[in-house]
């Protein structure tokens, strides 16, 4: 009964059948929707791989010295001897788990997938500003990923200096025992950095210049706001990492001395450069999750987002303040203590905008007509898990406390609460939510709920106890905890965590099967299965090439749920209400 978008301002056909051959349509596609799906398939593979590496680590930690069952013999002698993971290989596992998860799973899942898929659709544009550069962005990420995989098969093994690759360990192969692997790590990330930068300037240009008429800044969905700010962070932070990695690569290969002490190099310089990138990077990993969670929570609560303007300001605040806190990763590095105090203050400050967002999510749900569909389950748990992760972050922000907990499992717990409990739950929510739009079918709700509950329970069983481990002094990147007397009493906890981790990993099989099978046998989805107000839900599922047949006109914000103006509990952004003029931006009557 809803009217479709009224006649747009230009009565041209923007959509057309894509008559090009298969390779141009689906492999070397310039259509943002296809590119988004390509990133989705690639990233999910790396997510699986990163998880598998973690399972190998958890076996060693839970059952140190016990041979790997069944698969132990599959690994070469350099990695696994008599079924037991070697310490050198363990260091590579730690490094590559982090590297794959951060750069090849979470970042492309949030920015590459949803940035690409949602931005043009949600702002009413036919595609990105530069479709061919968009294609180049994906096809640069692929060789970067292949190269990173290749590192496992070179002599000396893969990079083993941690995902943070501190110099001089990473710069001098005499210290780490790894030469080619570290070089591959560097080159792969330089290529990936270029891919990300190309993507980011595309997103920024598109959002600034291609919003449909009526889509003023304060009528944009929070998912797009968050992707916009994230793209700015990517644009400005990734090049610094690229520069730093180039200097590291030169130290490794042509004998320069940026970070090597013998001729004046400064290891601290690497840390500063890396974390100047690294802190905005973690906001890159959470901001889109926050934005999409906002969209989903408003939808699931059938209520407007509470405090839309303050949500935008909080995103901006995090984006700006995030540049001034990087030193909190370096409290124990020996850096200038006064500088450290400055970073402590800025870090404590940055918890404020995040807290505002948490209260606003709660305010959105308060007295809402809550629909606990699968995306909503994931989105709500995102908020709760993010709170836990954020709270542990406040402990670390205080440098006197960090002296004790730095480089322990307390940090590991924190980072997994924000990256898994935060980002990954939001990713599960978003994949489930936008799957019908992408593929024209719904994922199974029943198996979605089973997957959610199993994941939620096992995830907390794995990571919450890590807070205890850390407070007891259990160090990070530790191969064999039982070599320390003071850690031996904690070993049962390590074993418990490992078993929970195996069950957690196994539970993801349900998601994988649901994802794949629903493509074939899922219930067919109409244009708007969630009764959402966004512009993408006015289009068929999946949308045609070129998106909108007629440029939409936007009359209101995206969160007009349960509006008194209409009978339904949702009111699309582009629906014109004849009896009243366009309402004020972002507000209700």
């Amino acid at each position, binding site marked *: 009964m809803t009217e479709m978008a009224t006649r*747009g*301002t*230009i009565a041209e056909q923007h959509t057309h059948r894509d008559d090009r051959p298969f390779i141009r349509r689906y492999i070397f596609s310039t259509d943002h929707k296809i590119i988004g799906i390509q990133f989705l398939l690639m990233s999910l593979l790396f997510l699986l791989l990163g998880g598998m590496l973690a399972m190998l680590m958890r076996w060693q930690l839970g059952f140190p010295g016990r041979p790997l069952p069944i698969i132990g013999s599959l690994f070469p002698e350099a990695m696994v001897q008599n079924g037991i993971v070697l310490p050198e290989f363990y260091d590579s596992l730690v490094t590559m788990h982090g590297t794959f998860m951060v750069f090849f799973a979470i970042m492309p899942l949030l920015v590459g997938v949803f940035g690409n898929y949602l931005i043009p659709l949600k702002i009413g*544009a036919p595609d990105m*500003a*530069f479709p061919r550069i968009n294609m180049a962005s994906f096809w640069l990420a692929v060789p970067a990923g292949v190269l990173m995989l290749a590192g496992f098969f070179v002599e000396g093994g893969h990079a083993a200096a941690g995902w943070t690759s501190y110099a001089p360990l990473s710069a001098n192969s005499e210290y780490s025992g790894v030469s080619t692997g570290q070089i591959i790590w560097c080159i792969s990330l330089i290529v990936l950095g270029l891919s990300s*930068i190309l993507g*980011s*300037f*595309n997103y*920024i*240009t598109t959002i*600034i*210049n*291609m*919003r*449909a*008429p*009526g*889509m*003023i800044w304060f009528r944009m969905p929070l998912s797009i706001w968050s992707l916009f700010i994230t793209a700015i962070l990517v*644009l*400005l*932070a*990734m*090049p*610094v990492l*690229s*520069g*730093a990695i*180039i*200097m590291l690569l*030169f130290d490794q290969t*042509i*004998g*320069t*001395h*940026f970070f090597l002490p013998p*001729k*004046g*190099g*400064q290891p601290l*310089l690497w840390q500063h*450069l890396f974390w100047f990138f690294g802190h905005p990077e973690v906001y890159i990993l959470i901001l889109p999750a926050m934005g999409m969670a906002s969209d989903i929570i408003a939808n699931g609560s059938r209520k407007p987002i509470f405090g839309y303007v303050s949500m935008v300001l909080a995103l901006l605040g995090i984006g700006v303040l995030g540049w001034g806190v990087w030193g909190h990763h370096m409290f124990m590095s020996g850096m200038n203590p006064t500088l450290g105090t400055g970073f402590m203050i800025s870090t404590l400050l940055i918890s404020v905008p995040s807290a505002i967002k948490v209260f606003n999510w709660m305010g959105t749900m308060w007295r809402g007509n809550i629909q606990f569909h699968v995306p909503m389950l994931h989105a709500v748990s995102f908020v709760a898990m993010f709170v836990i992760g954020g709270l542990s972050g406040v402990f670390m922000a205080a440098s006197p406390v960090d002296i004790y907990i730095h480089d322990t499992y307390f940090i590991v717990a924190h980072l997994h609460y924000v990256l898994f409990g935060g980002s990954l739950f939001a990713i599960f929510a978003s994949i489930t939510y936008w799957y019908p739009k992408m593929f024209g079918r719904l994922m199974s709700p029943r198996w979605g709920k089973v997957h959610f509950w199993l994941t939620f329970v096992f995830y907390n069983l794995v990571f919450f106890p890590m807070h205890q481990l850390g407070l007891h002094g259990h160090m990070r990147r530790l191969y064999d905890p039982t070599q320390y007397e003071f850690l031996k009493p904690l070993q049962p906890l390590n074993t418990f965590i490992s078993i929970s981790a195996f069950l957690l990993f196994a539970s993801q099989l349900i998601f994988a099967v649901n994802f794949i099978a629903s493509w074939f046998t899922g219930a067919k989805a109409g244009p708007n299965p969630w009764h959402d107000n966004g512009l993408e839900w006015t289009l068929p599922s999946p949308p045609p090439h070129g998106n909108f047949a007629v*440029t939409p006109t936007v009359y209101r914000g995206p969160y007009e749920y349960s509006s008194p103006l209409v009978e339904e509990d949702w009111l699309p952004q582009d629906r014109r209400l004849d009896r009243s003029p366009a309402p004020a931006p972002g507000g209700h009557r």
Partner: protein
Amino acid sequence: MTHGAIAASAGVMRPPVDREAGAGVYNEKLGMWVFLGSEVMFFTALIGSYIILRVAHPEMWAPPGKVLNVPITAVNTFLLICSSVTMVKAFASAQDGLQRPLCLWLLATCIIGATFVGVQAFEYHHLIEKGFVPSEGLYGSTFYTMTGFHGFHVSVGVICLSFVTWKAFRGKYTSTDHRGVEVVGLYWHFVDLVWIILFTIVYLI
């Protein structure tokens, strides 16, 4: 108010018509400025590291002119600035619809740009023969990395310029659509700007 008429008269070098007000410029120009933002941060990492390392160990640097050839590089700097002039003259010709001058100014920019790279390469060869190599210490490490990546950016610029020059000779640019000329011009001036900074702080300080 017929948007059709407005669309026809606005032209491609204005902001998109049937869209909300954005940056006030057309997409390609906005895109290039945004991309240049990332380039600023890239050179910040390299040049910033140089500044930091030099403040940490000033004794590891030679006085200006001792190791590096200031006269030749000064001429090279002048050449690069000239190429910025030829570039902007090319852009002005495109704006005025003057095809022949556009092609010639673009060609001049390409040639001068390639010459700059050539002189730099010649200088590198000379310095390496003298024994000033990247591995000699902080001075060598920072010098070669900064100027090397600048040279790389100039080379990419020359390649893009060649492409634009070729298109100009084929008559693809008009007074109402010369986006490629403006956008490559912005990149080229940026590369010149970086060199202005580099020449001063690497060769003269």
